[in-house]
């Protein structure tokens, strides 16, 4: 099994990104490529469903941080859902849960005002 695979599907105006596996310095370029491709294509409402994400290092956080200002400048946002405990611990420890909206599951994220729901 590859360290990381990434699926993307559309849910209304929101692009749902589903990373599966590990995001570290080795795999982060694939993650960045997917996110940057969405933003360059004018997709500014992005939900990262972390259901199958086992692990994320600061390299992965940096990929998200690098795009947050751009998407918000265009009236969009990057939302997070279904975080496993260890992934939530990283975001929470660094205070990033203040910067990103975190939802228990995808349906609640898609129904939120930030997703246009």
């Amino acid at each position, binding site marked *: 099994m590859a360290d990381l695979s990434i699926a993307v599907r559309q849910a209304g105006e929101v692009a749902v990104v589903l990373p599966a596996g590990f995001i570290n*310095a080795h795999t982060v370029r694939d993650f960045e490529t997917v996110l940057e491709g969405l933003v360059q294509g004018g997709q500014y409402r992005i939900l990262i469903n972390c259901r199958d994400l086992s692990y994320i290092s600061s390299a992965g956080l940096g990929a998200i*941080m690098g795009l947050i200002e751009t998407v918000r400048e265009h009236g969009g946002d990057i939302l997070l859902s279904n975080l496993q405990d260890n992934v939530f611990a990283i975001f929470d420890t660094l205070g990033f849960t203040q910067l990103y909206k975190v939802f228990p599951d995808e349906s609640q994220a898609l129904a939120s005002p930030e997703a246009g729901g």
Partner: protein
Amino acid sequence: MAAKVDHAQFRLIIPSQTRYLNLVTGLAKRASVVAGLDDATAAKVSIAVDEAVTNVILHAYRGEGHHSVELELRFTPQALEVHIWHSGQGIREDQLVLPDPSEYIKHPRKGGLGLLLMSRFMDEVRFRADEDSGRNECCLIKKIS
């Protein structure tokens, strides 16, 4: 006659390539459980080790993949210690500046979070240079409560 050691320890040497990060973090996580840490703490130790080894590969060795990174795990009754040695550019503790998370959130940017995660997730993080061998060491310690 082999020297007697007062704690369990073993070493792993990997090439300075990020493809081996998953191997190292998996080992660190399982070693933490063996040392008596709970699963949540073991996950934090593995992240700290990921960040430390990534720093060595990308910064100390500037992404050059032909060097080696040596890890030593030491199991003592009080703590799990992870020692990481390399021959690249060292970090001086007196030059370390950890980012302020609140400033980071106000002005998002890439990079700078690895050291912060290491310091938050471990009880001690030390950097030192061994003048005799010319190598640099990063030592991560997690106490067993």
